[in-house]
């Protein structure tokens, strides 16, 4: 059985699950939760391309998420531009900023790269908070319009759910295509060793920059969808903790795995909901889960659970 065949079946299965969930789930709260999972999947997917495949860490990805959200908010409210024109604008602006920031930052590696992206993320966060004449400052930005497409309104939970998951499916396919291409192999070669990759003729700095810009585009798309889902954005949504949460989604789900991004985003979106029952102990339990997954399954859940499964199968055969 060749691989692409299985991938196609997986996409059809996910599409079928999405359509069925949309029909079966009618509770507005659950639909919104599922929509958030979709948005977080886009974020995790973008960062996974950078971290999982190219091995470059970013601790400031919430900045691009925020740039996407604030661009569409400013354009649709202050300038009364249609959201569908604001979407490409948001993505292009995020990509341009990623390019400008990426040129000097991606020269760094390891902890130094982590720190560079962290600094960038903090500066953008402070900009959202302090540039109050444009962004509304710390109290936030209100009155972002709902999405409409001709007669179809996306104000209802179910339509928005389909819209977000449509984007997710599209992004999953785009990522898969990139990973299976020459570019994808180049990215993985950077992960395994940047010097070696250069020695065999991979233009590593160009490639790192491209994947950084791509992941910024995914994050901006997620920001756009977030802004038009909740109609209200504030700087607190796009802070350091959010950047860390995106990294956590990627790592917990499993790096260098597209489905890992989906799993990680789902778990990390649902976990706080489950932990509400712990009330006071929520943070303690959250921290413990994060630490123990990393200690015992450093490859993330997808890879880690697969390893355990294979090991148990081997011991059965013996």
């Amino acid at each position, binding site marked *: 059985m060749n691989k692409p065949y299985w991938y196609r079946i997986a996409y059809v299965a996910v599409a079928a699950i999405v359509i069925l969930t949309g029909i079966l789930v009618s509770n507005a709260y659950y639909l919104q939760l599922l929509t958030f999972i979709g948005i977080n999947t886009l974020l995790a997917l973008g960062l996974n391309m950078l971290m999982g495949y190219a091995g470059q860490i970013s601790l400031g990805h919430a900045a691009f998420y925020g740039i996407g959200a604030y661009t569409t908010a400013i354009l649709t409210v202050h300038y009364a531009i249609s959201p569908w024109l604001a979407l490409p604008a948001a993505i292009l602006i995020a990509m341009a900023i990623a390019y400008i920031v990426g040129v000097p930052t991606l020269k760094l590696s390891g902890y130094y790269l982590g720190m560079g992206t962290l600094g960038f993320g903090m500066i953008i966060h*402070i900009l959202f908070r*302090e540039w109050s004449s444009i962004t509304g400052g710390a109290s936030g930005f209100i009155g972002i319009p709902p999405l409409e497409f001709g007669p179809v309104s996306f104000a209802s939970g179910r339509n928005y759910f389909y819209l977000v998951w449509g984007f997710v499916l599209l992004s999953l396919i785009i990522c898969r295509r990139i990973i299976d291409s020459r570019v994808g192999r180049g990215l993985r070669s950077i992960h395994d060793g940047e010097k070696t990759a250069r020695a065999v003729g991979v233009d590593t700095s160009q490639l790192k920059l491209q994947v950084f810009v791509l992941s910024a585009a995914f994050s901006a798309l997620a920001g756009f969808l977030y802004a038009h889902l909740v109609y209200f954005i504030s700087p607190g949504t796009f802070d350091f903790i959010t950047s860390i949460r995106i*990294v956590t989604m990627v790592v917990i789900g499993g790096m260098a795995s597209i489905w890992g991004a989906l799993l990680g985003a789902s778990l990390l979106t649902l976990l706080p909901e489950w932990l509400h029952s712990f009330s006071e102990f929520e943070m303690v339990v959250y921290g413990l889960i994060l630490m123990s997954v990393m200690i015992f399954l450093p490859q993330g859940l997808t890879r880690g659970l697969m390893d355990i499964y294979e090991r148990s199968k081997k011991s059965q055969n013996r």
Partner: protein
Amino acid sequence: MQEILQYIFSGITSGAIYAVIAVGFSMLYNSTELINFAHGEFVMLGALSFITLSGPFQLPLLSAFFLSVAGVACIGMLFERLAIRTVREPNPIVLIIITVGASIFLRGVGMLVWGKDAHTMPPFSKHPPLDIEGAKLLAQSIWIVAIMFLMAAGLHLFYKKTLTGKAMQACAISQKAAWLAGIPSKFMILLAFGLSTGMGAVAGVIISPITMCGYDMGTMLGLKGFCAAMLGGLGSLWGSLIGGLLLGILEALGVGLISSGLKDATAFLLLLFILYVRPSGIISSVNVERF
């Protein structure tokens, strides 16, 4: 002139605190090549336990100081033993997530123990502020700077004069070679964790009289201490001190002369600047690879 002097005084005060935090970061990075994102939380633990010990428990300042620092250092060593040594794949990304997990955990513990309210603490001594050229210098500022210098000198002597300190430096150069030479390198790493988190607690103790202390005070302090360590040169003791003081002074001048919105941005703008221009820091002890 008087205003600028005032800004510089307050800058040196907060700079000294950043410096103490930065030294903790640097020390740990030196011997383990690890950046502890939970470091700010140890500052918080130090500050809050000091307030509790000297307030409700009525302990004299000096014993409260040593007890809280020693307690936090023990928690730090426990953290190393339970969460760091057990890691199967110690690569930067895994370690970053583990220390971030620890910081969330410790913040949760801080909230459970001390609640969500902020706590305060009277200054160490009741001496009135000194008047220098019209600018006020708080007695607490003198305490903070003096403790910073004492600590730096102590650390310097520890590294240069004692066998343990030299063994620790050997571990920093090469763990395997140190182990072959008969140095218990695992114990040295444990010790480095204890020293580094203890240093964080010292920063927490000396900052407690001049700010509101709550369970969430650690994150920003930790990040700024980190910027200071990068600015001076990660892994260098004197570099961290210079980086901390420079960051404090520039931050205070930025707030006073330009805008208060700049306060938190200064540290990160400086961080980006130094990373782009000279990632090894002002006083470089490491060679940073760039592609």
